[in-house]
């Protein structure tokens, strides 16, 4: 076994890759939320000047990647691999977004955990010596996600109190083999966890056990306690899932309550913006990290954080067939220095 693989499911990077730059592109509703000042681009047009919501998502992907690369003083030609994921069928949000770049591309599916997946894999590629620069990105679009997973937008229905609101946004980071901090020091790779939740309107509950599983493995594998991190940020558990996560982890003797935040509860004002349980989607954790957390890490206001994007891995078909909702979460250990 390689020395970089630690314990049950974790990785400790020998040469921790740098998160060189980050860029976040979001839609109008996100631009009205509490994190508005942290995003690089806030579009007032939910279609981003395009014809369809699907094209709009790809446009966000393109813009965020271009911006992150530009901030690093690079061009897309300098990037060895683009790793990106989204929620649309066949990863089309990412695929059409990177189409014009002509660079090596890995399309990832981890539902809303995609940003964690892309950052883990990107860091592994770099620490493995397979390149100098990698793009890790993830996106989602509210309208596209509703169309894919739920009902038409104009249908007059009520949302469940436990339902979440898919973020329209994309977060992209340039990871570099050498560079300034923050650095990706460690990662714990999530397993598919299914505790039998069948309610697609309560995905926080479906995902909380996966987040608990990966966070506990992270602590045990790397011999850490919650107070090692300033912040433990899950992706999109929302209010219901966050409460469940804290309780689940408590049962194993760790208390993360004081350190835990959820991107889904940061990106929107839960009451004023009427998002029920909170924000969700690949873009939720991706844009919150690339906008908000990256700035805090860069300024040194956060020294160490565990970033844990969470994903519900069901499809419309499996739910209709009565299957429960499997979930996954990946933990990325990040430090300013």
């Amino acid at each position, binding site marked *: 076994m390689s020395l970089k693989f630690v314990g049950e499911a974790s990785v400790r990077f020998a040469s921790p890759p740098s998160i060189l730059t980050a860029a976040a592109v979001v839609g109008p509703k996100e631009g009205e939320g509490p994190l508005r000042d942290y995003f690089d681009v806030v579009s007032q047009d939910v279609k981003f000047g395009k*014809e*369809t919501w699907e094209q709009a998502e790809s446009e966000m992907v393109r813009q965020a990647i271009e911006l992150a690369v530009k901030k690093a003083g690079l061009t897309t030609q300098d990037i060895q691999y683009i790793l990106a994921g989204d929620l649309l069928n066949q990863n089309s949000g990412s695929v059409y977004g990177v189409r014009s770049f002509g660079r090596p591309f890995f399309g990832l599916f981890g539902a809303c955990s995609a940003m964690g997946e892309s950052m883990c894999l990107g860091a592994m590629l770099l620490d493995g010596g397979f390149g100098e620069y990698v793009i890790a990105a993830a996106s989602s679009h509210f309208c596209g996600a509703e*169309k894919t997973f739920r*009902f*038409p*937008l*104009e*249908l*007059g*229905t*009520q*949302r*469940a*109190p*436990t339902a979440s609101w898919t973020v329209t946004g994309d977060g992209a980071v340039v990871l570099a083999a050498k560079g300034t901090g923050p650095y990706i020091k460690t990662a714990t790779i999530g397993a598919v966890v299914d*505790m*039998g*939740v069948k309610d697609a309107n*309560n995905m926080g*509950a479906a995902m909380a*056990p996966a987040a608990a599983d990966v966070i506990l493995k992270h602590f045990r594998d790397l011999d850490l306690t919650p107070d090692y991190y300033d912040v433990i940020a899950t992706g999109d558990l929302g209010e*219901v899932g966050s*409460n*469940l996560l804290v*309780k*689940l982890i408590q*049962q194993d003797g760790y208390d993360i309550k004081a350190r835990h935040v959820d991107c889904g509860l940061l990106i929107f004002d839960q009451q004023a913006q009427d998002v029920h349980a909170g924000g969700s989607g690949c873009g939720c954790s991706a844009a919150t990290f690339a906008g908000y957390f990256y700035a805090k890490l860069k300024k040194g206001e956060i020294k160490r954080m565990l970033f844990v994007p969470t994903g519900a891995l069901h499809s419309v078909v499996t739910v209709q067939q009565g299957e429960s909702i499997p979930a996954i979460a990946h933990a990325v250990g990040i430090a300013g220095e």
Partner: protein
Amino acid sequence: MDKQTYADMVKAASPPTAVFGNCVRAFFVGGGICVLGQVLHDAFLGTGLARDDAGLVTAAVLILLAVLLTALGVYEKIGKFAGAGSIVPITGFANSVAAPAIEHKKEGLVLGVGAKMFVIAGPVLIYGIMASVVVGLVYYFVGGGS
């Protein structure tokens, strides 16, 4: 932890749907739509239309209104407030046909609008018609229909 214990935890952690408030709102909005229908119906009767024709025209007007409000993005807001109150009347049915038609316009007139238009209303039609057939048969054999 076993799945049942977790299911209990989830239940305790999840806020319940506001059933009472939803029922009250559904009652008044649904009732309001029916009152509007009655007003229209009486008005059409007043113009000298036969009872059956007045009923048909009333339904047509309500459907037209619902489709218009759907296209303007208003019906969605009514539905969010009223729940079943705006789903159950004929206007809700019209909304459930118009909404997917608008949503899937970009996929073309045949595979988009045409194929997806009845994605929500389709089951209602199928089981509604089947139920009417069953009731009709029962009526024919038991109720003395001829």
